Structure formats: structure tokens, C-alpha cells
């Protein structure tokens, strides 16, 4: 019986801590002033980087041109052997 009470209390404590931690995030985000501007910049930047730049301007050259690692290795080896002056 005593053990059960202790386990229950520990469970309640952990639950309480998780709840407090979660509330800290929620309240923190809600009460931001300068943080809103900063988050807007961060999200805008990530959108430009990962959606626009990565998709349209920065494809992974080897991943898009070749479908297997063997083909990629072959392409790089070809470059390595053909770019020598001799």
C-alpha cells in the first residue's frame, strides 16, 4: 500500500514537471515581444533556404544525376582520372 502511494506521488511529480515544462514553452512563446520578430526572421530564412534555394538552386549534384552509389563513385573516379594534365 505504502509502495503504491510512493509510485503514485512520483508519477504525479513527473507529470507535474512535464506540465510545468510545457507551460514554460507555451507562456514563453505567448509573451514574446522582440522574439516574435526574431522568430519571423528565422522562419522566413529557413523557408527561403530549404524550400526555395535548396529545391531550385542547390540540388545535390550527384544525387540528382545518378541513382546508385556505384554510379556516383564511377562519375567521381572518371573526374579524378580525367582532370589530370597528363
Amino acid at each position, binding site marked *: 500500500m505504502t509502495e503504491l502511494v510512493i509510485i503514485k506521488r512520483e508519477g504525479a511529480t513527473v507529470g507535474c514537471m512535464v506540465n510545468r515544462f510545457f507551460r*514554460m514553452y507555451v507562456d514563453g512563446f505567448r509573451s514574446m515581444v522582440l522574439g516574435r520578430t526574431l522568430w519571423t526572421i528565422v522562419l522566413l530564412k529557413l523557408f527561403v533556404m530549404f524550400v526555395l534555394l535548396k529545391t531550385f538552386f542547390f540540388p545535390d549534384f550527384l544525387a540528382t544525376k545518378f541513382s546508385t552509389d556505384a554510379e556516383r563513385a564511377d562519375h567521381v573516379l572518371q573526374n579524378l*582520372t580525367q*582532370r589530370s594534365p597528363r
Partner: protein
Amino acid sequence: MIDQIDLGQVNWARAQFALTAGYHWIFVPLTLGLSFLCAFFESIYVRTGNEEWKRLTRFWMTLFAINFAIGIATGIILEFQFGTNWSNYSWMVGDIFGAPLAIEGIFAFFIEATFFAVMFFGWNRVSKRMHLFSTWMVAVGANLSALWILVANGWMQNPVGMKFNPDMARFEMQDLWAVIASPVAISHFAHATGSGFLLASLFVVAVSSWFLLKRRHLLFAKRSIAVACVFGLFSSLFVAYTGDEHAFITVRTQPMKLAAMEGLWDGKSPTGLIAMGIVNGAKKPGDDQPPFLASVEIPGLLTLMAHRSFTGFVPGINDLVSGNADQGIEGIDARIERGRLAVSALGDYKAAQKAGDGALAQSALAIFDDNRGDLGYGYLRSPEEAVPPVALTFYAFRLMVIVGTFFILLFVLFLWQSLRGRLEKSRFLLRLGVISLFLGYAAQQAGWIVTEVGRQPWAIQGMLPVSVARSNLDSATVATTFFIFLALFTALLIAEVKIMTKQISIGPEGA
């Protein structure tokens, strides 16, 4: 074959990488140093219980957050560029860089998702000690995160702990510890993070000096300066020490870079250090032209730096290019010859494997193994190609060292005037404090110019020149993305400066 290389594309890709790295390094050093300063300020608050220190901590933490938010993820763009512009390089180093960069990513995520949130949202919600612990963890985590990036860069400067796999065209990790504990990587990390601490100290001194010049927040500014100057003085001495250590290692691992840093064409024993000089830009390896149009030399100092004694030979560019039999230095011609044998054997190995000729493949592999250490030299057209841009490396090194030495003096003067209680009246010194921030940023950029320009033409020292590391793209594509980045980063920098200056002008009340 070499004529087919689009050098315009290589140079645009280089310029793009330099632009991105340069902008990235505007944000990073301030994050590295300011995180520790915030931890110092908060430690004083927790120890004294004085609410003024809390106010002070929160102000600097706000500026830290602005810099962090604007600078976040700018480094990821470098990874985009690896995959697009430098695909050969990216493929070849994937096995080496995978581990350090993955560790860095995991580290950064957990630090930012947990302790960063407590640092900003946790005031009055968690205990003082828990909050302080989180602030320290952000500082330690941010700096450890930098370790992995600098380990990767250190490996490019001195590739150790790996073996080239000719079947997959990859450098494969043989010894993770050798990569992490490489003296180049460690000294690189110590010097770069130390310079971040120095820059952040200058930042606090500059903003606080501005407050004092405007006669605002006087006690706040003086307290900030006192802590920042102590940290700045220790950091600047540490940077000088690690810089010396770095030069000591460079002469052993990248002697050509050290020769370019010093504008040293013909090695001597003992050799002086050029304190100031005007580089003769027309000088080429092997000619009779003077290396400098004018110079001031400190006798014996370069030998002392390179050998920790006044005796010992420091090789110059001509010694390294043409060789110096007396000093046992081999010329680059011989390395080019071996490099070409390695490249040729690699081609033969590949062809023999395709033809199913096992005996020929084994014989080609044996030749490759004998010459693999000079693989990169096989792509150079002439020994002169192994010489980096001397003038740029020389001037950037001098800017870094001279300005770095000045900072030691600056912090001493600020501390001296603080102790005498005369800081407010030292208006010239306060103006100097404001200007020094810009010198600090210039020194940061100069340091990376020395590191990266000084090791050209190599993407991986001695193993892979940039002309081979690049992708098969046309220069117009890379030029277009260069200007996109120029616009993007300039916009971010303007945003940083605008938000930062607004927050500074509001002062501690707005934190």
C-alpha cells in the same frame, strides 16, 4: 584534359563559399563569446542576489538572442554548396565528415531545444541555479558545437586518420580519434573559439562605451566593461598563445602556407619576421626580384616561432617549389611526378576492373598505393600552382596579428581606467572602444583569409585541389547563386544591425 576545366566556375564557386563563410563568421564568434559572458554576468547575479546584475544579464542575453536568431543555420548553406558546387569533394569526404557533422547537428538541436528555452523562457519559472546551469550549458554547447566544424576544417588542412578507397573514390575513416585529436584541429578550435571570446568582449566594451559616451546607464556600462575586459584580456592572451602554437604546427603541416604568411621566398637559419612590409606583387618563384618593396624585419623571430629556438631552417616558397637538397626538402616537381603516377594508376585500375583483368588491376593498385600520398599533386600543371596568393595571405596575417596585439593593450587600458574610476572621463579611450569592435570583425575575417587562402590550391591539403573538387557545372549557374546569396546575406546583416542597434538604444529597460 586540364584545358577542359572551367576555371571561371571554380572561381565563382570559391567566391560563393568565401562569401557564405565570411558572412557566417560574422554571427558565429559573437555567439560563442557572448554566451560565456552572459553566463559570467548571471553567475555574479546568482552569487550576489543583486537584481541589477539580473537586469544586466537579461540585456546582454537579448542581444545574444538577436545575433543567434539572425545567424542561425547560415552555416547549413555551406553544406548546400558542397553538394551542388563541390560534389566531387563532397562525395570523397562524406565518410570523414559524416560523423563530426552529425554529432554537431544532434548537439545543436538538443542544446537549442532545451537549455536555450530555459535560458529565455525560464526566468522566475525555474530555480536560479537551474537557470544559471542552462545558461552555462548553452555556452558550453555552442562552443562544443563549433568543435566538430573545426575538426572537419582541421582535417581538410591536415588529412589524417583516413585511407583512400579507389573502388568508391572516397576517403574512408580509419581512426576517428586521430581526426578529432589532430593537433591542427585542436589548435584551430582553440584559436577560433578564443577569438570569438575576444570579439564578444569587444562587443560588450563597444556597446558599454557608447552608453558612457552618451552618459546613459553608467553603472550598468561600467560593470559590463569590468567583466568584459577581464574576459577579453584573458582571451586576447589566449588567442596570442594559440596563434603562436598554430604557427608552430603550420610550419610542419603546411609549410607553404607559413611561407606565404611571412612572404618568405628563400629560407634561412635564423630567419627574421617581417613586422611590416609592402609585398612585391610581381615576384614569381625562382626569379631575382626582391620579395618586398619596403619592409621592417625583426631578426631571428620567425625561426624562434617555428622552432622554439634561434637555430633551425624555415623553408621559403622557392625551397618548397624547387627543393633544397641541403635541407632535405624535395621539390614539387617530384611530387607532381608521383601524383601523376597515382592518377594514371587509378585510371588503369578502373579500366582493368571493368575489363575483368585481375592481375592488371592488382599491379595498377600497387603503383597507386606507392604514390597515393601525393595524389593531389598529380593535378597541378606546374610546381608554381602550389603557391597560394602571397600578398593577400601576408597582409591578412599582419592585420590579424597587429590588431590582436592592439586589443591586449586596449583591454589593459580599459581595466586601468576602470580601477582608477576615470572611465567616464576617458572619452578618447571610449571612442577607441567603440571603433575597436569593427577592428575585431576585420581581424576575424582576416584570420579565415589566412587559413583558407593560405592553403590554396587545395580543397584537401596535398590530396585534392579545388579544380578537381568542383562539380561539372557551368560558371553562369554558380554566378547566379552567388548574387542570390549576396542579396540574402546582406539583407540578414542589415536586419541584424537594425534590430541590434534599436535594442541597444532602448537599453537595459527593454530586455
